[in-house]
């Protein structure tokens, strides 16, 4: 990959000084813990020096969530035809109800279940255990929502601590109901972030779902699965049509607007295309080992990356697909050119800083660049080393890379680098907007979207322009 052109005013020395000055405010032990997690980018090295996937430093105000959040919010929640039970006290289910924007088709309460199902644990459940209640709850849920295709049981902190056996209950109920009842031991105290929740959820799909169903129609040479697209703001609905247009047959989606039986039948596809590597690479590897299904990472943010990805995908198939890909690229170029021509004049030369989740801190870089916006800093809430290794080449030399950045650090970094836009989450949003810095939520697309695919780029470009160039920012400074 060609190295990014240097960004004016950014150098390794300056960035390292910024890091040092910022962490100087921390007590010794916290500083020592945080130092390895921040660095100046060195695009040419094979392994990014920034360390990741370690415990949050207590008290620093991390933005991370927990394993339950990774399981309920990310992997399981988007599967539309299952009942997802937040097993434990009432809060977790309430806070994660409808707050991720994983849109789904279906009739709510009939064929899709964007509701909050919980066992609402009380003190007596902690004392006597919740297994009997869970069993009863599953029966009640199945009776009241008979068209569900299965249930997932997502355990909250107390469940693991009191030694309940949700796996035994799930096994019993799966037999009784004759449909999927999948336990997921994703208590919030497990692991160091959402990430372990993804992994545990992948494992429960491996242990309880994959291989247990088959498609009625015969397998074809162009059958693929779309992995790690959660349909935030309708992303799946912008990405899937492109894959279909190039002649591929999308058999299942993991898990945005997904269906459990199709997910369980995915082992018959020819290729797994994975967007969010962090949250779903585990199952891609399982399917590769067990069923010889190759997998390929792709990136559908912005025309440059879309074209690059489509050509990579084409390489996995015959000439028919290759031809289709070129046709599709040609077809959408004028549309993309028009988008760039409209927005780039107002955005060229601007800079942005990102701090997001699974794939966006690297995957969206190209889309910004298509609009002339350069990224001066990026980082992940819950990434691992392999994510950072994939990030380094996407960023210019000397740019700032931060892992699990605390509120204090991010504020200091932004103050110094003065980006024209910060793209991060809801907890960070108003901190920067109060300071007069344009901001877009990049987990939820700030209630906009889709951002994936050709259709999504147009919306992304409009939103970035709107954020940076809103006349409201001109009113922040009072004349008196």
């Amino acid at each position, binding site marked *: 990959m060609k190295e990014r052109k240097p960004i004016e005013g950014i150098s390794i020395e300056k960035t390292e000084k910024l890091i040092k000055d910022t962490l100087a*405010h*921390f*007590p010794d032990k916290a500083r020592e813990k945080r130092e390895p997690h921040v660095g100046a980018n060195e695009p040419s090295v094979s392994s990014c020096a920034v360390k990741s996937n370690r*415990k*949050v430093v*207590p*008290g*620093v*105000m991390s933005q991370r*969530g*927990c394993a*339950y*959040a990774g399981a309920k919010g990310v992997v399981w929640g988007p599967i539309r035809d299952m009942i997802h039970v937040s097993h434990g006290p*009432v*809060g*977790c*289910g*309430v*806070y994660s*109800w409808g707050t991720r924007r994983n849109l789904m088709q279906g*009739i709510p*309460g009939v*064929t899709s279940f*964007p*509701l*909050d*199902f919980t*066992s609402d*644990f*009380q*003190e007596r459940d902690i004392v006597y255990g919740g297994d009997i*209640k*869970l069993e*009863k709850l599953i029966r*009640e849920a199945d009776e*009241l929502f008979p*068209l569900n*295709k299965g249930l997932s049981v997502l355990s909250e*902190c107390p469940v693991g*601590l*009191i030694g309940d056996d949700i796996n035994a209950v799930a096994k019993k109920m799966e037999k009784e109901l004759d449909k999927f009842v999948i336990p997921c031991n994703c208590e919030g*105290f497990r692991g160091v972030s*959402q990430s372990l929740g993804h992994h545990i959820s992948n494992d429960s799909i491996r242990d309880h779902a994959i291989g247990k*169903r*088959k*498609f*009625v129609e015969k397998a074809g040479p162009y059958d693929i699965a779309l992995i790690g697209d959660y349909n935030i703001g309708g992303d799946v609905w912008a990405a899937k049509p492109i894959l279909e247009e190039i002649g591929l047959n999308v058999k299942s989606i993991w898990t945005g607007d997904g*269906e459990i039986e*199709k997910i369980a*039948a995915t082992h018959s596809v020819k290729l797994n295309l994975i967007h969010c590597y962090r949250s779903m690479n585990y199952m891609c590897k399982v399917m590769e080992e067990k069923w010889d299904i190759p997998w390929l990472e792709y990136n559908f943010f912005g025309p440059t990356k879309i074209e690059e990805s489509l050509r990579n995908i084409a390489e996995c198939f015959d000439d028919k697909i290759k031809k289709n890909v070129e046709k599709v690229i040609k077809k959408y170029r004028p549309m993309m050119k028009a988008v760039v021509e409209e927005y780039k004049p107002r955005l060229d030369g601007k800079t942005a800083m990102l701090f997001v989740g699974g794939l966006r801190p690297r995957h969206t870089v190209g889309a910004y660049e298509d609009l002339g916006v350069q990224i001066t800093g990026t980082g992940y809430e819950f990434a691992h080393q392999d994510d950072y290794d994939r990030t380094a080449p996407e960023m210019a030399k000397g740019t700032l890379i931060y892992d699990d950045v605390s*509120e204090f650090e991010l504020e200091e970094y932004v103050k110094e680098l003065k980006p024209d836009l910060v793209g991060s989450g*809801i*907890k960070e*949003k*108003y*901190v920067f907007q*109060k300071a*007069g810095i344009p901001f877009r939520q990049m987990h939820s697309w700030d209630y906009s979207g889709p951002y994936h695919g050709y259709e999504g780029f147009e919306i992304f470009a409009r939103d970035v322009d709107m954020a940076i160039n809103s006349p409201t920012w001109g009113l*922040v*400074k009072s004349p008196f």
Partner: protein
Amino acid sequence: MSEAAVVEKVRNVTEHTSEEVEKVKNWINTEEYKEKNFAREALVVNPAHACQPLGAQMVASGFEGSLPFVHGSQGCASYFRSTFTRHFREPSAATCDAMTEDGAVFGGQNNLFEGLENAYSIYKPKMIPVYTTCMPEVIGDDLTAFIRNAKNDGRIPEDLPTPYANTPSFNGTHLHGYDSMIKAVLQNLTTDQKVEDKCTGKLNIIPGFDGNVGNLREYKRICDMMDIPYTMLADISDVFDSGCDGEYKMYPGGTKLEDAADSINAKATISMQKYSTTSTMKWVGREFSGASEILPMPFGIKKTDDLLLKLAELFGKEIPAELKAERARAVDAMTDAHQYIHGKKFAIFGDPDYVIGIVTFLLEMGARPWHVLVSRATKKFQKEMDALLASSMYGEGCTCYVNKDLWHMRSLLMTDPVEGIIGDTHGKWAARDAKIPLFRVGFPIIDRVNLHRTPVVGYNGAISLLSMIANKFLDITDETCEDQWFEMMR
């Protein structure tokens, strides 16, 4: 088993037929379904309440220089912050000691030590209120000892206020967390502050768990108009409604700690919510010098009258002419618009004190609070609501449901429809299914802008509520009537 036999066990992917879907779609709207739905014992679907530490965090955010501190899993802290930020569209700072599996085994003292030390030196708070998530509650962490030890160990200064509350999520709701935390903060800050025969002459106002900062500002405005000096305790109005002036302030407001400390010597203390301050007000009644009163939230005219009369009585003040004029204007608005609301049936859900207030207002308008639902409440509340409904002819036939959730409410709306629903954003699914407008009042409101800034209490609040409801009904008439019924005037 041979491989072939295993393969045979793999079942086909199935699709529901459109007949099946149609059947269930209709069935879930029936009386028969409602009965099944109301018979469930274990499953909760779409509850309208949250957990204790959320309420504790609201209190912990409401003091000057105060940094809320969650002892437990970091995911909880992120959920609470996100919840407040989504509702207020404001930053919501809170930190956490990020307990993980080893914490579950060895207890959370080390996390708390490190967390307090880092939080104090990085964010320089004047106070760190500590409250718990499920995890330390289940394993039995001893906060009293841990915080004492942290100070003895020099992690934080001895004189840094560190009030703390046990707020297990498997007990009570966000309202109990609010209660425990505000009591803990006041106990901490007022220790040794009581001075014999001293009276500050001030009024303490405890707003309760109220996501409407406009309400808090309205209470303060009323006090100003009546020339009553006051201290609002856990005052989130500037914290969660701060301006955008180009500078982020981590601590943009809140009750001054010295005012909170001196609150024990006040002339009187009033709580604006009964159910989120029950144990606090018992304690205040025992320990504080002045009078203490729990008042209902002043929704509508009469409850606002009661508030003003009570303040006048406690402070020996006249009710000023401007407030009398405000009252008259509100009554004028209500008489002008009564025809658009009179006799209309409503479903109301939310926190007990809010629900009592809204029902009071509806009864004043001659509307019928047909279904009243609180998803976690006591028998005492049920009795209070029953008595309120019985106090008016418009309450006749109306029913109060406690410990029922919003999926129960959906059944009620489908089998026994109403014309309007009043509650928070979580009601939008049921409202959409039933094709009944939802008037967003309460917490959280995460799908509309600025509603948390417009007061729903006091005389002005009555006008706002009334306008919101009546105008929506008129919009619906204009949007849905046939051409021959479309008119210039309404």
